C-alpha cells in the first residue's frame, strides 16, 4: 500500500506540464494520502494529526504558484513544513570555550549510546578538540570494556575509575581540568522512562554537574513509542537535544519528527553505520525527504522549474495534448534534460531512482540520442514511420552510432507517442521524460 501511495503522489508530481489552481478538494485529497504516508513512516498518530492540520492551514491560505502542478505544490508545502519543524530548533553544536564542558548521553537500553559517545568524541577531536570519554554505564555487563576498546581504536582518552556514575563524572571533570581536556563526554546506562529510580539518578547527575548538553539518544527504528520516550525523558530529566541512531537501516525514521515536534528540542547529530566515522550533523532537509519517502524530488522540481524554458515547455505541452509531438520536440526535451545536470545526479533525485539507474540511461546515451535525431531530416523527424532500411543506415552512420541504437530510439519514440495518445484521451497524467518503458 505504501508503495502505491508514494507512487500516487509521485505520479502526480511527475506531470511537469500541467498546472492549475489549488482547490480545497485537492488539498484534502493530498493530505489524506500524506496522512497514510506519515503513519507508515512511523510518525506518531497524534503528531500526524497536528501536522496535517497545520499543513492544511498553510495550504489553504497559499497563493497558487503558476508554474507547477497542484500536487507538486501540495507536496512542496508539506515538505517545507516538515523541514521547518525538524529544523526550527536547529542550532550549531556549541563547542567553544569555556573548557572543559560536559556532555551527557542518555536514553533507553540498546539505542546506541556507547557507540555514540565514541563517535561524538571522534567528531569533536576532528574539530581540533581534546575530548575525554567517561565510562559511566556501570550497569550493563562489559559496557566499560566496550567503550574502552572503541576509544582506543581512535585514540581517545577514557576515564573509568569510580564506584558510582556520580563519582566517575566528578573525577573525570577534575582530570579534564588538570590535564587540559576540552570536553568530557559521559556514557550512561540505558534506562526505561518508566523507571522512576533510574530516571531520578540521571536527573541528579544533571543537577550536580550541569552538563552543557544532555543529549537524548533515539533509535530511528522506534515506532509510535518515540513520543512517549521523548516526552518522558524531557519531563523527567530535561534534555537539550538529540542524537538519532541506526539511520543506515531502512527505517523511514518518523520517530525523529515525533520527538522533535513534541519536545521542541533539536537533533544535533545522526549516526548511520557501525564505524566511528559514520556520524554527521543533522540535516532537516534530508530527514524530511526520508520520512516522506520520495528521493530529493523537490530539489528536482525546483531545479526543473528554474531551468526549464517555460515557453518552450508550454508549446510542447500543447503538442502533447494533441499528440503531435514529434522527434524535433523530443530533441528539445533531450536538451532540457541535459541542462538539468549530470543525468546520474538527476536520477538520484527521482523517486524510484534506483530502478531508473538500472536503465541504460546516462549522459553518453543522451548524447547518442541527440546525435541520432540531429542526423534526421526534418521530414523524418516529423514522420518517423518513413525511416526504413537505407535511411536508418544513413542516420546511424551520420550520428556515429549503430543500427541497433537507431532502432531502439525509434521503438522508444513509438512507445512515447502511444503514451501521449492515451494522455490526449485524458487517461491521466503520464510522466513525460521518464515514461516507464521508454529507455529500455
Amino acid at each position, binding site marked *: *500500500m505504501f508503495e502505491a501511495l508514494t507512487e500516487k503522489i509521485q505520479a502526480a508530481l511527475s506531470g511537469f506540464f500541467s498546472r492549475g489552481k489549488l482547490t480545497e478538494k485537492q488539498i484534502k485529497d493530498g493530505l489524506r494520502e500524506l496522512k497514510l504516508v506519515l503513519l507508515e513512516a512511523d510518525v506518531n498518530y497524534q503528531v500526524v494529526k497536528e501536522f496535517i492540520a497545520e499543513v492544511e492551514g498553510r495550504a489553504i491560505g497559499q497563493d497558487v504558484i503558476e508554474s507547477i502542478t497542484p500536487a507538486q505544490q501540495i507536496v512542496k508545502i508539506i515538505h517545507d513544513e516538515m523541514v521547518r519543524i525538524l529544523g526550527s530548533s536547529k542550532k550549531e553544536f556549541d563547542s567553544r570555550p569555556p573548557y572543559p564542558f560536559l556532555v551527557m548521553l542518555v536514553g533507553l537500553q540498546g539505542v546506541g549510546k556507547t557507540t555514540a559517545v565514541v563517535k561524538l568524541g571522534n567528531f569533536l577531536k576532528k574539530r581540533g578538540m581534546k575530548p575525554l570519554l567517561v565510562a559511566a554505564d556501570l550497569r550493563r555487563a562489559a559496557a566499560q570494556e566496550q567503550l574502552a576498546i572503541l576509544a582506543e581504536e581512535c585514540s581517545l582518552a577514557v576515564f573509568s575509575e569510580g564506584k558510582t556514575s556520580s563519582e566517575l563524572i566528578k573525577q573525570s571533570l577534575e582530570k579534564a581540568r588538570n590535564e587540559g581536556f576540552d570536553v568530557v563526554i559521559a556514557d550512561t546506562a540505558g534506562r526505561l522512562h518508566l523507571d522512576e529510580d533510574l530516571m531520578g539518578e540521571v536527573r541528579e547527575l544533571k543537577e550536580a554537574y550541569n552538563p552543557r548538553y544532555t543529549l537524548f539518544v533515539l533509535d530511528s527504528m522506534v515506532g509510535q513509542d518515540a513520543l512517549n520516550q521523548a516526552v518522558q525523558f524531557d519531563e523527567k530529566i530535561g534534555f537539550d537535544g538529540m542524537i538519532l541512531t541506526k539511520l543506515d537501516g531502512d527505517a*523511514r525514521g518518523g520517530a525523529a519528527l515525533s520527538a522533535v515536534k513534541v519536545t521542541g528540542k533539536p537533533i544535533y547529530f545522526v549516526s548511520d553505520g557501525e564505524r566511528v566515522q559514520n556520524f554527521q550533523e543533522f540535516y532537516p532537509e534530508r530527514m524530511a525527504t526520508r520520512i516522506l519517502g520520495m528521493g530529493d524530488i523537490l530539489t528536482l522540481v525546483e531545479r526543473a522549474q528554474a531551468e526549464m524554458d517555460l515557453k518552450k515547455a508550454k508549446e510542447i505541452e500543447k503538442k502533447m495534448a494533441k499528440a503531435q509531438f514529434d522527434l524535433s520536440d523530443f530533441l528539445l526535451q533531450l536538451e532540457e534534460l541535459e541542462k538539468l545536470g549530470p543525468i546520474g545526479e538527476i536520477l538520484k533525485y527521482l523517486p524510484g531512482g534506483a530502478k531508473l539507474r538500472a536503465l541504460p540511461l546516462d549522459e553518453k546515451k543522451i548524447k547518442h540520442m541527440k546525435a541520432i535525431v540531429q542526423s534526421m531530416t526534418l521530414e523524418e523527424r516529423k514522420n518517423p514511420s518513413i525511416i526504413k532500411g537505407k535511411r536508418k543506415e544513413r542516420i546511424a552512420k551520420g550520428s556515429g552510432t549503430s543500427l541497433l541504437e537507431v532502432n531502439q530510439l525509434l521503438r522508444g519514440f513509438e512507445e512515447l507517442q502511444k503514451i501521449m495518445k492515451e494522455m490526449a484521451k485524458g487517461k491521466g497524467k503520464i510522466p513525460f521524460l521518464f515514461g516507464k518503458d521508454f529507455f529500455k
Partner: protein
Amino acid sequence: MSTLDRLRKGLAKARADLKQKLAFLFKVSNFDSLFWEELEAKLIQSDLGVKTTLEIVEMMKKNSFSSPAEGFEALKKALLKTLDFPLPVLIEKNKLNFYLIVGVNGTGKTTTAIKLANFFRHRGYSPLLIAADTFRAAGSEQLEVMAQRHSFSVVSQRRGADAAAVVFDGLSKAFSNRLEVAIADTAGRLHTRKDLMDELKKIKKVALKACPELRMVVLLVVEATFGLNALSQVRVFDEILSPNGLILTKLDGTAKGGFIIAVQRELQKPVWFVGFGEKIEDFDLFNKELFIQALLS
C-alpha cells in the same frame, strides 16, 4: 514479588483500565465516525500499522454489535485469531538443540541468550552458551560476564575471530558432552547489510556440519519499541535465514509491539518468547492472551 508477578499485576491493572477505556469507546452507542476513529487511533498507536488497522476496522464495521462488551470481545477474538500458531517444540529429545539468536543491533540478544539458558536450566537442562558475537567491542565479554554471574559455561574466542568457527567449537563441545541445549549469541546486524547477513547463513551451514544430530532453532529478536521497520527486518531475516520464530523484548516499556500482528498477515512468524525487563527472570513463553490484553490497554 517476582517480576513475573509484577507483570501479571501490571496486566491486571491494565485490564481494569482497559475495561474502562474500551467501555468508553464502545459506549459511543451508535458507533459513529468518532468511535471508529478512536479505534483506529488505538490500533495505530500500538504499531499495528495502517494496513492492518484498516482491515480490522473494516471487519468490525461489517458486524453489528448489541453491546459494547460484545464489540470488544469480537475485536479481541479477531486479534487473537491472527496469533493462532502451533505451540513451539522447545526440545527435540536425544538431539542437540541449537538455538541461534539473531537480530538487529541493540534489541537484547545477549540478554536474551542468558535468559533462555536460564529458562532451560529451570526445565532441567544444562545449556551451553556460545559467544558468537566476535564483532562488537566487548560483545563476547558481555556474555561471559553475565554467564559467570549465573554460572553457565560459555565457549568464546577473541574479538575478530570467525563467528562460525566459534559456533563450530561450541557445538563440538556440546556434542561431546552430550548436552541437549546450546545457545549462541550473535552480533547485532542491520538486515540491510548483506555481507553480515551472509555471515549468519554461513554460521547456519557450519552448525549443521559440526554435528549431524543437530536440531537447529533460529530465533529473531525484535523489540517492542520498534515501529513498522520491524516488518522489513522480519521479511529480510526470513528470506535469508528462515528463523523458526520471534522473541519480542522490552515489553516492560510503554510500547506494545503491535507490529507482531502486522507481521502475521504477511509472514506467519510465531512468537516463541517475550522479554520484559533486564533481569534474568524477566522472560517467558509468549502468551497471546496477555499480549493482546496489554496491546489494547
